[in-house]
């Protein structure tokens, strides 16, 4: 590998879909022509002003963007250090950032003349967002969801069904997000001619990591503009939770070439990094799974390990390839917080700001709670509040030993 210091951190991937040594198109031959076709259509869509116009119109009038940038006064006071601001993507239609990407991908699917939509889901947020856009555009929708996740995310399963989606419980493996993705890929390979796969995170074969990032970058573009408008300067630190990493890359990407802005991605340390967890960067090694090369939790034979996180949305043994590259290039720092710490973050935000966060951004809040007190009071942290917590109240109640 001839690795040069990049002039920009924002011009990845290369024409073969590689972010440094990561990314790529590691798919079965059956899917390869479709992946190439998708790339061609995405390139054309990017250059088409009407595509951008329709995307932005839907984000404004259907999703409710721009989402607010909110200064959290009581949390800031309690932590006693840097000012804490939140990008409120939990206020989007469907309650999470996932919808941004789904709007973009369904417009692509329609451009490509595809008649059916499939998706995988972990927590169910991406499944709900996909079912939502399918209902909006009148396309049949099949969602693959691990049977374990079906059990722990019943409210979202019901939402998907209300929206007209068929939810297929996947029982192979640990029956979580990884297995749902395997099954979605199996279905796709048998229905390539008429089916579009809306991947929910910035991972999978090229061009998915790039296009998901582009659709989610609305988060960072808005945050950058709003922060400049409100404070006259850029934040000192961005913080976001990472499963596959789509909300984090969406927030980070527009700031990557602002050298003064530091960034912190927060993986799920589950029961602890020495036990079962979902922190691929902290505890994994580069490998190939689900169409891309990236950091994976795996054993010395390359068998993929089962991840664990209290948050179904972070419960995945891999990570988007751009994060793998940003870690190796040193541009972004990555840390991990445990289930217990995330629960504390969850309670902290409920108590101080009257916002019930999802368990995914609760990981980011836990990291903020650690780092804010170490920073001066004039420093600014902007964290991504990427989902609301209504879906998680049963999980949280169980973890706290409460009966609902």
């Amino acid at each position: 590998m001839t690795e040069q210091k990049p002039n920009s951190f924002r011009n990845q991937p290369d024409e073969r879909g590689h972010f440094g040594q990561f990314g790529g198109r590691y798919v079965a031959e059956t899917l390869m022509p479709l992946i190439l076709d998708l790339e061609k259509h995405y390139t054309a869509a990017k250059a088409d002003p009407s595509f951008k116009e329709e995307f932005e119109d839907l984000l404004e009038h259907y999703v409710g963007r721009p989402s607010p940038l909110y200064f959290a006064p009581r949390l800031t006071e309690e932590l006693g250090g840097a000012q804490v601001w939140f990008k409120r993507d939990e206020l989007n239609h469907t309650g999470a950032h996932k919808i941004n990407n789904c709007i973009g991908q369904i417009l692509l699917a329609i451009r490509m003349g595809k008649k059916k939509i499939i998706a995988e889901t972990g927590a169910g947020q991406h499944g709900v967002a996909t079912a939502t856009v399918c209902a909006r555009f009148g396309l049949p929708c099949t969602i693959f969801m691990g049977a374990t996740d079906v059990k722990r995310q019943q409210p979202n399963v019901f939402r998907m069904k209300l929206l007209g989606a068929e939810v297929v419980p996947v029982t192979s493996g640990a029956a979580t997000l990884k297995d749902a993705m395997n099954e979605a890929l199996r279905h796709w390979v048998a229905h390539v001619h008429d089916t579009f796969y809306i991947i929910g995170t910035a991972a999978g074969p090229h061009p998915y990591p790039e296009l998901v990032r582009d659709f989610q970058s609305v988060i960072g573009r808005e945050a950058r503009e709003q922060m400049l408008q409100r404070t006259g300067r850029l934040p000192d630190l961005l913080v976001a939770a990472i499963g596959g990493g789509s909300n984090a890359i969406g927030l980070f990407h527009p700031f990557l070439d602002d050298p003064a802005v530091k960034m912190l991605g927060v993986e799920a340390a589950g029961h602890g990094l020495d036990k079962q967890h979902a922190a691929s960067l902290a505890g994994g090694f580069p490998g190939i799974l689900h169409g891309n090369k990236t950091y994976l939790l795996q054993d010395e034979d390359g068998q993929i390990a089962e991840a664990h996180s209290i948050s179904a949305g972070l419960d995945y043994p891999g990570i988007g390839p751009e994060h793998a590259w940003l870690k190796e290039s040193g541009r972004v720092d990555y840390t991990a917080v445990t289930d217990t710490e995330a629960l504390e973050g969850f309670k902290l935000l409920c108590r101080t700001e009257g916002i019930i966060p999802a368990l995914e951004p609760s990981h980011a809040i836990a990291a903020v709670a650690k780092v804010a007190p170490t920073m001066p009071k004039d420093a600014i942290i902007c964290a991504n509040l990427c989902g609301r917590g209504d879906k998680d109240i049963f999980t949280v109640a169980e973890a706290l030993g409460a009966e609902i």
Partner: protein
Amino acid sequence: MTRFQSAFSPDRAALVCFITAGDGDTAANLDALVAGGADVIELGMPFTDPMADGPAIQEANLRSLAKGTRTADVLAIATAFRARHPEVPLVLMGYANPMIRRGPEWFAAEAAKAGVDGVICVDIPPEEDPEIGPALRAAGLDLIRLATPTTDAARLPAVLDGSSGFLYYVSVAGITGKQQAAIDSIEGNVTRIKQHTDLPVAVGFGVRTPEQAEEIARVADGVVVGSALIDIVGEHGENAPEHLRELTASLAKAVHNARKA
């Protein structure tokens, strides 16, 4: 002459048999396939996430891994097979991650040392060849690529460039062990592919019975059977060899005699 060249003779089609390493008594099962008349053996390397496989091979992967099968065990099975069957071509088939975990050079060297002739890696398309292709070629191993119904004329040369040993034509757009393609479609595609290459073309996915195998053997150089054999291993466990031998013998007879009928 390589083992592949001997196995794919011009006057009759070859029977290619797939089973998963570490699922059941693999050595005895492999011997049964050879005794039944298999011309080429594909030995599946178990993987936790066999994304291109249907339920039969998924379960075989999980059974094998649940028994604790390691990469070293797969290589040991190959080495012992080579010692018992010096003439039968042996292919390792699997997914990229276990093949590159210790570096592709390590894997290629170990596979070559074990007497393996070629490798099929499901999730390395020609676009990602640098990941494993150069290492395999340097070790003298054939890289057997897959062509599918979605591999159009524009793409076929890229698939063939760097392929050796034989070409595996996946007859259906789908996963292993499911439906079989219509013979017209198979014949048309095999004819199309053979206009672009001198490599033997073996056809697989969904082939379960001697009747299906015979039909394909009339138009292709080889017929691949996997899930039907795996089902026997799953059903009969330690008693699988006699059943495997029986099915393989009927498949081999159908395949070998297809062009005489």
